């Protein structure tokens, strides 16, 4: 099994629901966003680019691209970053030594470091006292490695896990569930009949920074609404 995702940029309305759902479900500390949505070319999100009446506004959600040839995994000195049997790149929060080599290595800027203690950060920025968000229980992979915990330890790296706490039970990742435009399709790339496989084959799917040879498992369908 090789879990992958197709994001249809034609359908994406740039609402950032996926980013918010991701943030909440995965208990991301303040300032940490596993999933980002921006308007390429524009200083501000949701502001068109172009000139002379030829304006364009597309949206590009970016989270971990789940590279098959993942530089973050290859550089990790302690094997804290690894690919599980379903092709999902995960970080073991109990093994990460916080060297941040993987942040330098990832071409997609999706890896985030816990610069301060998440508990203290929530307090410091003034989140309401007692406001706990996110999936409440730890999740360990079948080998017992801690790959999700609602309050991350200080000094470790984190990133999108394809919602390992849900997808390991056969449910969909939070971003896929939350997308009101149904722009995200999730499934097994090894199964030729899955919707993701069909879309990748039949549509002009592309991947980010293809030239680096990282072989992401996140594919994008190009936007056709090029100007409006």
């Amino acid at each position, binding site marked *: 099994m090789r879990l992958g995702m197709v994001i249809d940029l034609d359908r994406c309305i740039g609402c950032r629901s996926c980013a918010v759902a991701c943030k909440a479900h995965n208990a991301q500390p*303040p*300032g*940490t*966003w596993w999933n*980002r949505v*921006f308007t*390429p*070319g524009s200083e501000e999100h949701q502001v068109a*680019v*172009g000139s002379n009446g030829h304006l*364009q506004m597309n949206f*590009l959600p*970016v989270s971990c691209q789940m590279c098959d040839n993942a*530089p973050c995994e*290859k*550089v*990790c*000195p*302690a*094997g*804290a970053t690894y690919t599980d049997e379903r092709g999902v790149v995960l970080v073991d929060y109990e*093994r*990460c*030594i*916080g*060297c*941040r*080599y993987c*942040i*330098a*290595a*990832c*071409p*997609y*800027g999706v*890896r*985030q*470091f*816990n*610069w*301060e*203690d998440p508990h203290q*950060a929530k307090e410091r*920025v003034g989140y309401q006292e007692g406001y706990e968000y996110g999936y409440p229980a730890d999740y360990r992979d079948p080998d017992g490695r801690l790959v999700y915990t609602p309050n991350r*330890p*200080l*000094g*470790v*790296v984190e990133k999108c896990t394809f919602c390992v706490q849900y997808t390991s039970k056969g449910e969909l990742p939070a971003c896929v569930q939350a997308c009101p435009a149904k722009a995200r399709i999730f499934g097994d790339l090894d199964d030729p009949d899955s919707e993701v496989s069909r879309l990748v084959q039949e549509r002009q799917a592309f991947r*980010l*920074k293809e030239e*680096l*040879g990282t072989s992401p498992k996140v594919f994008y369908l190009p936007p056709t609404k090029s100007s409006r």
Partner: protein
Amino acid sequence: MKKNSKMVLALASVILVISLIAWGYQIRNGLAVTNMRNPFSWGLYIATFAFFVGIAAGGLIVSSSVYLFNIEKLKPFTKIASLSAFASTLGAGAMILPDMGRVERVFNVFLHPNWRSPLVWDVIVISTYLVLTFLSVYVQLLPDWKRDGRGFLNGWTKSREQEQVDALAKKWSRRISIVGLPVAILIHTVTALIFATQASRSWWNTAVLPPDFVSVAVASGTALVLVISLVAVGKERFDEFQEAFRTLALIVAGALVVHFFLVSVDLLVHWWWGKPEGLEVLSLVFGKYGPVYATEILLPGFTMFYFFSKRGSSSFNSLLGGSVLLFVGVFAHRLMLMFPSFNAIPLSLSLPGLGIENWAYPIATGQLKEGMSVFASSWSYAPSLVEYAVALLPFGLILFVVSYALTLYNFVPQKGGLSSRNLNVPSLNTNDIGTLKL
């Protein structure tokens, strides 16, 4: 002299204590006390680490060239070269630790090493180098220890004759140098590979980086040996070793020629193809970070010409001054490994038809703070006060180890009858130089 060295030791201890306190503060509060954030995730610590790895090389390169290439003139300085190599390696290794988010877990690198990671290779070669330089210092001190009837971990030499110990020291320093030279070259190659392997960062991703690290290491490492020997020998006895100093200065200058050659071909290749990413990096190098880059080019450039000249390489002050300028330049060079690289965000897109090239996809900084955007397309990094304090660690450590070793033992060839004036070791006679020449 004794009083002086006591003061140096005290200074080193103060520096060490300051850095340890700062490190403790950082451990309590997290790396948020630094000015690094997700878009700029390695800073002063890694640059300082690379700097000390660089100067660690010279040591063994000098001793090795004496044995391997028979550069006789350098013989008086092999001991001090090995000592400086050992101390700098120790400093480099120590600098890495405060950069870790979870320093108490570093053992995971040994428990679960990922053999694919250049960082693991670096741990291996640097540890090997640390052991080798330690052994090198140790065996070179054995004859003196035997003669003076003291020393450290040398009980086994008691039952042996002085000549036997001399021969043993000679044999083993030679052997260690032979193994040490390739390891010295490896520590730079592998440290450079940490960066050079990363195709996500075009500023690093070049095969020129490893040979360039080696050339900078030869230049700065030799300069460190030069400085320590100058200080140890003192102005009064400068003339005695003039030849050796001049040779060291020429090695520094020659290595810089190679360095500048490699740097210029690298820049040329980046510029010639003119990829937007490449040009962006160049505009950072010559624009925003122009002053730092000028420091990295002009100071070592000056040292290079100066050391080639008769004037620059034949006086105590000019050699000292030239070396110090070189250190500043090389430090700037190490910082420049980080600045352009982290400010060119790898995920950048071009929008053909709109004339937009190289639009950087914003990165979440990792901290929510009043008046600061959570997402950033560039990060103007400058180290925080805490970072500066923590980065004193290797400086304190090296100063401590070198000055302590210099007060304890005899690292400089002694002049007959004068030695006890300098160091608190029993007076040795001129034969000493003979023993060193082993």
